[in-house]
């Protein structure tokens, strides 16, 4: 397999960015990534761009061409990926495959979403389109309600973990306070989470990820060409494993609601390709669209036995100084969740940490990192494993 590395990263701040159009977001993050890679734009041979719902929220489709013009990329081929909240890492995987196949040596991968200019109703309706319209949404389901049902089923099978779910939110908010790009710089408590505005029992507003604007871009290159094209000498971060799997779009179509098999299968593929085990992973960015999701995911990724993830959180094993730090960036819960950019934001954090550029939230001795990005109610999943060279 051809070795492929992330050689450039760029990211906007996440949040309610009233003064930014989607073009502005793309322009800032895209140019930052290209500058960070230290390459000429002419070296970029293709673009893979992720956007979930710009055609609805911003009435803008054909995003690949939009990005190409915005960044001055000329006549290169472009492609938009969409897999709900996993859209970003689908773009990463397309870029990775193109280089692995030998089609290109250098590609740009990006994602952006502009959400906060819309009303809550429009945002909610757009988000719900990632669920099954006919059997779920048109019968009263909301997106949080699908994960709330997972939480209640989890309580039934493994016991009540309400406090530990709240602890995930508390930890991610603490981490986000150290991330200048994060949307939420506010510490919260377990009681505040539990007493928040009820959304769908047992989830309150503090169990839910954020509505955000933001953009992230990455430059990928065949590792063997890096020396000849890069002006900078930053630590290379190799993509050593990648996995992609799926499941039914509807919650009732899944064989389990406490094990998400898209995650299990994507992780299996990524671990096998990378030749590593869960215990080898130094830190991970894990999809925490809701607090229950983070707990189910850390079990499905093999960091904890099934039914033991909540105790791992409560014991501090997922904290910054724990054995497997999770969502040091603040995660979707507190860094933010601009959907098309979210999966790439996880990789931004992995690369930032491995380069030693994470400032106050810098982890020590990190060489292997994992990202886990989930779409819908567990219908699409990409897991990627990275190694610092």
């Amino acid at each position, binding site marked *: 397999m051809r070795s492929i590395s992330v050689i450039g990263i760029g990211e906007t701040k996440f949040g309610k960015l009233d003064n930014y159009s989607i073009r502005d977001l793309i322009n800032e993050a895209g140019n930052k990534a290209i500058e960070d890679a230290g390459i000429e734009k002419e070296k970029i041979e293709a673009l893979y761009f992720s956007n979930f719902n710009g055609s609805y929220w911003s009435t803008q489709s054909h995003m690949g061409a939009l990005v190409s013009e915005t960044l001055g990329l000329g006549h290169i081929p472009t492609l938009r990926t969409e897999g709900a909240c996993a859209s970003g890492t689908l773009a990463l995987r397309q870029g990775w495959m193109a280089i692995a196949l030998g089609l290109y040596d250098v590609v740009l991968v990006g994602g952006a979403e502009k959400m906060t200019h819309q009303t809550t109703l429009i945002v909610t309706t757009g988000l719900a389109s990632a669920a099954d319209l006919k*059997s779920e949404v048109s019968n009263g*389901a909301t997106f949080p309600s699908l994960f709330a049902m997972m939480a209640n089923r989890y309580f039934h099978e493994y016991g009540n973990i309400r406090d530990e779910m709240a602890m995930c939110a508390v930890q991610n908010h603490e981490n986000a306070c150290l991330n200048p790009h994060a949307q939420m710089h506010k510490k919260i408590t377990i009681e505040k989470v539990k007493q928040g505005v009820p959304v769908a029992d047992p989830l309150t507003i503090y169990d839910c990820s954020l509505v955000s604007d933001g953009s992230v871009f990455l430059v990928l290159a065949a590792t063997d060409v890096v020396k000849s094209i890069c002006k900078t000498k930053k630590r290379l971060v190799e993509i050593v494993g990648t996995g992609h799997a799926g499941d039914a779009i509807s*919650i009732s179509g899944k064989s389990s609601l406490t094990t998400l098999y898209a995650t299990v299968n994507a992780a299996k593929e990524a671990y096998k390709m990378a030749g590593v085990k869960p215990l080898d992973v130094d830190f991970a960015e894990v999809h925490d669209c809701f607090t229950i999701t983070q707990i189910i995911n850390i079990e499905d990724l093999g960091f904890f036995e099934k039914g033991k993830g909540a105790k791992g959180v409560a014991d501090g094993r997922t904290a910054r100084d724990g054995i497997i730090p999770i969502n040091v960036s603040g995660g979707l819960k507190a860094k933010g969740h601009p959907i098309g950019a979210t999966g790439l934001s996880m990789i931004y954090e992995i690369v930032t940490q491995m380069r030693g550029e994470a400032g106050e939230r810098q982890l020590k001795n990190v060489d292997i990192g994992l990202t886990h990005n989930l779409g819908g109610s567990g219908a699409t999943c990409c897991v990627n494993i990275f190694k610092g060279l």
Partner: protein
Amino acid sequence: MPHAALTSLRDFSRGGKDMNKRGKIYTYTVINVASEEFVDQVPYAVAVVNDGENKFFTRIENYRADREIKIGMEVEFSRYDENQKPLYKLVYKN
């Protein structure tokens, strides 16, 4: 659960799969923040019901905040709503 012998209902939203008149709650939630179409119904309960053959998503029509709802409770078909979505109701033992 006497599912097999009962007349089956056709859930138009599931591409014609049959669902039985009675089933048990596999999981549920009570929704407090709804989309525009359902905002005047909050709080309302939705559930994944296991009818012994399949699982399907439905609204629980007779949920009330002062009465219990939990996994394993029996539900039965109540009616179709104006959009031809089947609604189920909790079967209270007393």
